[in-house]
């Protein structure tokens, strides 16, 4: 069975919210000798990309996305030995729900997918003041901060973080990714709160972070 077929089957398990079936599939792939990192790169990653497309088409629910994130987490745990530290991560990223926002599920899903994609994720939790985001980003050397908000009222609190980054002269070193349900309903809000970019779903955040990281590194990006 080629890896495209494996990936297609994993996607089917994600869509059907079948965590057990997905785990069995990953175990089978490993048992057949596929290297763990290839399971991640050739089976998990394409399934996640396809999942993102389905979300864009509005055919996926939060429940299915939640199961998919758990499957991604399970796959990582099966493929990465316990206590091992990956020698090469994509870099550090700091995420959290902005001050006054307590809707954590989307953020946690983002964290799982980012970790699956190879990022060193620092999740600050709910109700995070702008100062804490920036302090942690400077501490861990993150070039991307991801601020989440579900409501319009709390999304506007992200402006404080924008102002703080700008006032410290860090706009070229630290990029601000914003996300949450309200940004899907009102995409213009991304600019209004000073975001450097957004993704419509947790699956798309890896690509967003890579794009923003490239901007920091001075690479040409489309």
């Amino acid at each position, binding site marked *: 069975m080629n890896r495209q077929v494996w990936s297609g089957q994993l996607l089917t398990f994600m869509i059907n*919210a079948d*965590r057990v079936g997905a785990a069995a599939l990953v175990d089978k792939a490993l048992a057949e000798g596929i290297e763990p990192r290839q399971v991640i790169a050739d089976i998990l990653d394409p399934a996640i990309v396809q999942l993102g497309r389905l979300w864009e088409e*509005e055919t996926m*629910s*939060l*429940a*299915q996305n*939640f*199961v998919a994130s*758990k499957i991604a987490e399970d796959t990582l745990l099966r493929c990465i030995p316990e206590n091992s530290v990956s020698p090469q991560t994509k870099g550090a990223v700091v995420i959290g729900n902005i001050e*006054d*926002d*307590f*809707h*954590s*599920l989307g953020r*946690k899903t983002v964290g799982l997918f980012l970790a699956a994609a190879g990022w060193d994720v620092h999740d600050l939790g*709910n*109700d995070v003041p702008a100062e804490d985001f920036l302090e942690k980003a400077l501490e861990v050397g993150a070039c991307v901060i991801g601020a989440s908000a579900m*409501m*319009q*009222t*709390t999304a506007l609190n992200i402006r404080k973080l924008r102002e703080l980054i700008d006032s410290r002269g860090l706009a070229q070193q630290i990029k601000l990714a914003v996300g949450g*349900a*309200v940004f899907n*309903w*009102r995409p*213009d809000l991304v600019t209004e709160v000073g975001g450097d970019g957004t993704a419509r779903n947790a699956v798309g955040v890896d690509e967003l972070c890579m794009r923003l990281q490239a901007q920091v590194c001075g690479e040409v990006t489309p």
Partner: protein
Amino acid sequence: MNSYQRVMATLMGQPVDRLPVFAVLGAYGAKLTGVDLRTLYSNAAAYVAGQQAVQSEFGFDLVMTPFVYTAISEAFGGETAWSDNQAPNIRRPGVRSAAEALLLPLPDPEQTGLLPVVLEATRRLANIYKEQVPVIAVLPGPGIMPALIIGMEQWMETVLFDEERARKLLDHTAPFFVSWANALLAAGADCLVITEGMASAEIAPRALFAERFLPLLTATFAQINGPKVLHHTGGRINHNLDLLPGLAGLLGVAVSSKDDLAEARRLIGADLTLIGNLDNLTLPMVSADEVYEMSLARLRTAGNSGHYILCNSAADIPLTTPTENLQAMLSAVAAYSAETGRGI
């Protein structure tokens, strides 16, 4: 016709002088009366004064009982995060797991936390507006209720990975949903709007709703003796509309701004009232003329059946929405009535 007669006639499919128009303006009452939101939602007199101010300012066809779900999460031990510019949120759920939630006693609507304040506000509104303006109570549906107790993430985890425990928790909390609904009706609410998150396309696929949560609605609705509207809770609901007719006491469904209104009518049949479809988030961002046009477009799409109430979708209208934009909704209904020959 007064607002009460107009709304009840619309819900029952009877002729009206004009279509009703709603706007979810709970927190807006604080803006008009100058109290902070914590006072508004913690003091029955302050809340009722807010609704009186909203009614006096705009004259929409409803008054609302406090739309404050943190009163329920607090009643199960949760902690509330208060804000100056939005309705309160859950800072921390009462317990962290379904197993712990199963051990919690159910709150007494007349005794626990802020629940009596909500009931007292309902009684006062009913005393002032009974049979003049409908008193509409909003409450969370039985399928999403556990999320207020253990948090959304834990609830999703339980629903998706521990079906038996999820069923037990729903069995445990359903009697509270029923008792809370009946308490609101007994206090004077004329109609219940039940926000069932598990019916939303953004939360759960149709099969999950149909197999696990629709039977729960069927069982609990039969125990609540009053008119009900099922609300989309912010996400799309068209994918489930054909499943809803026949639920006990269901008179209408509130649809989201992303649902196709014409398709919604086809899916739900001729007998139930559709409510909403006006985008909440757009209201503070556009001109009054644009709100007028958006409103009129929806009335022209859905008003012909008579079973339609113009309303914003989702929860409270943002406090930054100008009064002119809200008045534009009323103007659109008047214009539509003139256009269609339903005189005011």
